């Protein structure tokens, strides 16, 4: 008796009956009997067992391997040609241009590289320039731009963003386009000649439009509206540029100024230090002749862009494109690998399923 007793006495009151709550309270306190509140919502209760996962593994394997093979084959069918014209070797035609580079030289240095295409390039050919060891993704570099200036904003033109430092002003005037990215615009000029059987150089027409994203060209980048980009703009050209932004392509007003496609392409910073950027497109002329027949070619380079100082490399790449992009065996191989692993695991699981599942099924059913 003591336990209960002492509890009560600590309560200390001459209390009334130990009574139950009034009837009214009972009703309100009763929990609702809904499926949600009672945690009994109807539910699908899947369990990952060897038995259920097995088919999935086989299916994944069966789908992935053919896709992988398809990707691999189409990647192999892509023609790609790459030539390094940095001029590190003394044997390289561009060696002297690279060695004697000076920011102040007024006469451009031109060099020519000869190369041979073993196989013809059938469809449209895309011409890229590639840079290596160039950190376009360096944080200081990536943020050094002013998107509102590039979008044609008047105030940003006169007063560029602080992010552009130290390429924000020069000689007291704002730089347009400001920032490190714009300042380091790739300015080599590449020209391609086909040398036909009778040793004449035929210029291959290079299309410079359609190399930038449509949305970039038409929405994101805009020339400052009513004022034409000209000298009266009271802006300075980027320090490393040879000509101001309004002279990037004087021949075509639709490709001049901030909406110059070479400029736009450059302004999309690359993800990795080795990258390529689309330079020109060689359109397919007719169905009968290949775009680039096999044979000898000359690449003429106006060498303006120094990369040796930071141990960089410059390349020119010619590539055809399929529905899955350029030459990249990785995706196909990866698909085949993952597919095979799945298939293999499916087999392993099948064995496990056979060996263990029967046991666990028969035994240990709860009483």
């Amino acid at each position: 008796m003591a336990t209960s007793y002492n509890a009560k006495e600590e309560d200390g009151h001459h209390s009334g009956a130990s009574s139950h709550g009034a009837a009214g309270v009972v009703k309100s306190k009763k929990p609702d009997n809904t499926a949600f509140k009672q945690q009994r919502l109807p539910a699908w209760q899947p369990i990952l067992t060897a038995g259920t996962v097995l088919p999935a593994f086989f299916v994944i394997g069966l789908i992935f391997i053919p896709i992988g093979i398809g990707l691999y084959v189409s990647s192999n069918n892509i023609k790609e040609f790459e030539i390094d014209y940095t001029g590190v070797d003394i044997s390289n035609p561009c060696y002297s241009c690279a060695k004697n580079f000076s920011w102040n030289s007024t006469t451009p240095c031109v060099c020519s590289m000869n190369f041979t295409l073993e196989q013809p390039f059938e469809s449209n050919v895309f011409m890229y320039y590639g840079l290596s060891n160039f950190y376009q993704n360096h944080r200081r570099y990536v943020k050094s731009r002013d998107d509102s200036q590039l979008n044609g904003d008047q105030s940003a033109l006169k007063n560029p963003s602080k992010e552009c430092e130290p390429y924000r002003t020069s000689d007291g005037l704002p730089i347009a386009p400001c920032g490190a990215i714009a300042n380091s615009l790739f300015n080599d000029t590449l020209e391609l000649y086909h040398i036909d059987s009778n040793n004449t150089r035929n210029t291959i027409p290079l299309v410079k439009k359609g190399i930038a994203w449509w949305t970039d060209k038409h929405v994101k980048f805009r020339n400052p509206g009513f004022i034409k980009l000209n000298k009266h703009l009271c802006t300075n050209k980027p320090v490393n540029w040879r000509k101001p932004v309004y002279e990037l392509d004087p021949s075509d007003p639709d490709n001049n100024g901030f909406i110059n496609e070479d400029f736009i392409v450059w302004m999309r910073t690359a993800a990795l230090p080795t990258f390529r950027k689309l330079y020109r497109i060689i359109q397919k002329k007719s169905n009968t002749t290949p775009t680039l027949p096999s044979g000898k070619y000359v690449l003429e380079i106006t060498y303006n862009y120094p990369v040796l100082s930071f141990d960089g490399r410059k390349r020119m790449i010619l590539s055809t494109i399929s529905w899955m992009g350029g030459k990249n065996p990785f995706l196909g191989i990866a698909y085949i690998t993952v597919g095979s692993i799945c298939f293999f695991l499916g087999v392993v699981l099948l064995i496990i399923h056979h060996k263990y599942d029967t046991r666990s099924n028969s035994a240990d059913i709860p009483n």
Partner: protein
Amino acid sequence: VLTPPVRTCTHKCVGEENWVDSRTIYIGHKEPPPGTEAFIQQRFPDNRIVSSKYTFWNFIPKNMFEQFRRVANFYFLIIFLVQLIIDTPTSPITSGLPLFFVITVTAIKQGYEDWLRHKADNSVNQCPVHVVQHGKVVRKQSRKLRVGDVVLVKEDETFPCDLILLSTSRDDGTCYVTTASLDGESSHKTYYAVQDTKAHSTEEEVDSIHATIECEQPQPDLYKFVGRINIYMDNEAVARPLGSENLLLRGATLKNTEFIYAVAIYTGMETKMALNYQSKSQKRSAVEKSMNSYLVVYLCILISKALINTALKYVWQADPNRDEPWYNDRTETERQRHIVSLAFTDFLAFMVLFNYIIPVSMYVTVEMQKFLGSYFIMWDDEIFDEELGERAVVNTSDLNEELGQVEYVFTDKTGTLTENNMEFIECCVDGHVYVPHAICNGQLMPGAAGMDMIDTSPGPEVHEELFFRALCLCHTVQVKEEETVDGIKHGIHQGKSTSFYISSSPDEVALVEGMKRLGFTYLRLKDSHMEILNREDEIERFELLEVLTFDSVRRRMSVIVRATGELYLFCKGADSSIFPRIISGKVDQVKARVEHNAVEGLRTLCVAYRPLTPEQYQEVCHLLNGAKLALQDRDKRLAEAYDIIEKDLILLGATAVEDRLQEKAADTIESLHKAGMKVWVLTGDKMETAAATCYASKLFHRNTQILELTTKRTEEQSLHDVLFDLSRTVLRQHGNMTRDTFSGFSGDCTDYGLIIDGATLSAVMRPTQEDSNSGNYKEIFLEICRNCSAVLCCRMAPLQKAQIVKLIKTSEEHPITLAVGDGANDVSMILEAHVGIGIMGKEGRQAVRNSDYAIPKFKHLKKMLLVHGHYYYIRISELVQYFFYKNVCFIFPQFLYQFFCGFSQQPLYDTAYLTLYNISFTSLPILLYSLIEQHINMDILKKDPSLYRDIAKNSLLRWPIFIYWTVLGVYDAIVMFFGAYFLFDNTTFTSNGQMFGNWTFGTLVFTVLVFTVTFKLALDTHYWTWINHFVIWGSLIFFVVFSLLWGGIIWPFLNYQRMYYVFMQMLSSGPAWLSIILLITASLLPDVVKKVICRAMWPTTTERIQVSLLSLHQSLMVSLRSSVSSIQFQFNFICIAPIHNRSYLRTLFK
């Protein structure tokens, strides 16, 4: 009858020594007559209740300060400030916005709550009260009430402050009060007016009272009060004691009494109710502890990542052409900075870049999960008691998951295991047994000489008569007439009787009622006379002189009555507290009977008496008055006085009362045992009674070997020897069986049950003089306990219960303990244990108020632990692991990217993605999972308690599992990053030859990341309701829609447009789609394989049952398909598996 007035001789009176913590109140603000000693006038606060924390002006600073005192918030504040100060890779918005969001939401919630409190305060403070001023009743606002005001309270009104009852509308100076809002007890309690003032029942009369009250300064204990009133009549002061029976507490309500006059003594924030607002100390769960240690690990990872990158950065930059190539110059100011400051800035920048690995949202999600999740306990239909009309109460939601981790259950016996519904069984006078007719029917009573109402054999008539009168008189039972009580009646009226007994102790009611059945009916207490209707239908009147109330230390109570000139002291109490005080009587026979009854599981009490001479009585009065008037140590003095008075007793006999086991108590205990919990019963009852209950409740089985560690044994041997003996017995057996108690649970090996009593326990716990053994005893005792499946501790004082809990809690394994109890004596252990559970029993609400969770019945513990606890643990452990996992996946690619961007802190993802990843893209699915996941069906959890062992010892948050998740996160991050890397590496990705930039690269990784992380959760989900589908697919769709929108517009408020059309361009490229699919598959593959293989080769019990359920399901479907042609039905069965089918499944199971 009352104590004769004691003449106050100034302050040399009793209990006046060094008494500083007291206050003096002038009733009606009337100065005491000159000549009495001058009291120092004190200043008291007004009656304004301030429960609000903030005012309008200090809300923002105070709330901010409180919020940033939390370590997590402070950490994010620091990160945010760093981002503001230095040039960091990510904008301050990325960490500022989530932090701002969290802080704002919390502030709004707290502000709203505080506004509600302000409103409540105002309505309370402004409610009108009636105050007697100059003989008239005046209305006043409650907040203007002052100490010393005489207040008029009418029926059903709530007391505005703590009051001393002066007079009531009833002649006897009593009033009824319910304290439901204070402690939840809805029963009516009686309070008494001061004797000398109870006649003043109009405002003029009350106004004429000239008195002062001296009392202690306010203290929070609701049930303790000591004070003294000095009444000045004809310049002569009369002092009267005041106790808690005179004190009306603020918050209580006046019932069944027309009006009362009372004087305010504690006001405003000094009332006992206000003092009880203080919150309890916080308990932390094991999950929270492991979460914090994971956090430390991640903080180390974060710092080491930042350090590694900073170091590598400077190694890499040693070449000036790399550091500053011509295309990427530094600014002039940056060039001039010192290398150390640069490096430090870089370190901070890396910290900022990687800080998302510890997300703000985890804290928010965990809090929300706990808060919302606790509703499922309250909502549970099965934890609802129709009879009581009560459902489970959750006082704290911090410990939900701890319910799934319990290893030791400490339970009270009376009211917890048993009903606390007493029934009188028999009594024994000098060895003759009396059994009420109603009970003995059909029962074999071996010791009973007669089956009739009364033992017919010639007994000592005097003792018999005295015994029955003693039981009729020695109690604190009150008689309630039918019409005076509304609603709350206790059903002991049997047919014709119109009145019934109420008491704080069910035992007393049982005894008085038992007497009624034996022919002696206690009628009422009237004018200090107790009236008894004896067998001859004559009314006997006894003058009640003194009541020596019960307390748990003495374990007995006494009354002193005068009957026809003779004075008697009747005493009843526990056998152990009565027998040593006996000088004559048939001790042996009674003792034998008491022990016999105790073995039967009955609660026994002994009754004794002592005739008093008038001289002795005078002495007694003097002793008692001296003690009662003491203001300090009153309890101690009273106890001493009682000790002197209750001696030289003559034994009359003993009683036996039965307390039934609660419904399904045995089943619950068995389940808890099967679930691997050790159940200890801690009771104040005597050993035999408690042991019988333990057998009945299947705590001990027939084949349990009982080890005794009781005073009886230690009397024979020394404690030292007994302990060593026992440990040898246990360990010998133990050596034979497997060490692993969890998997090695089997029925055939002997399991041990230990019985220990309070005295021996304190001997074990006592730091002994011979220090060589002092630590040892505890260790040996623990070792014995560890090997016993059940332990019974009897004769426990409340504090000892807490001591035991603490002893186990702090033993080397640090097991998780749970304490269940229903009475005030269990509060200490409820507060001490990791989880405290209160039973809404008949002994008031003290246990419930102090508990973490409260349930109506003991049997509900089963569902609380086995189902709710299990679920909460599974849910929160997945929540914690998943949160760390998804942030490793999130941040590790960013770390890897630093190796390819010249360690320049270039973020991989866009600001919006960095900000929203944890807030919206991946937050809801895991929150929902952590609320409604059910890895296995509820009914199976209940049916098979051994599943509980699967999650014992925090098994899902152990280091290997944590490392697995982290490694999985790192693997996924590597797959995502290098997958994207090789796809982007120097090649074209589109079918139009155009190139992608770094933001597309990041977006590709991020897309794979969001999908992988969400699918990973989907794979872990075992319970797919429509809400899961909605949230999981919904959040993926939200991500896509957001990305389309974010990249679809030139946002005018942004100073960069880097994401413009990036997502769309990516989606327009075929290889991007293919690589997203590939990378998601590759990321998820190892986890799926691990799961399947583990399940097949090393399944846990849970997994086995899941599988067997599934296969059963399938075989059932095959049979259904053959028998039932309805396609619709099959469809339902496969896809929805409704609950009613599940019960069908269960029957098939067997």
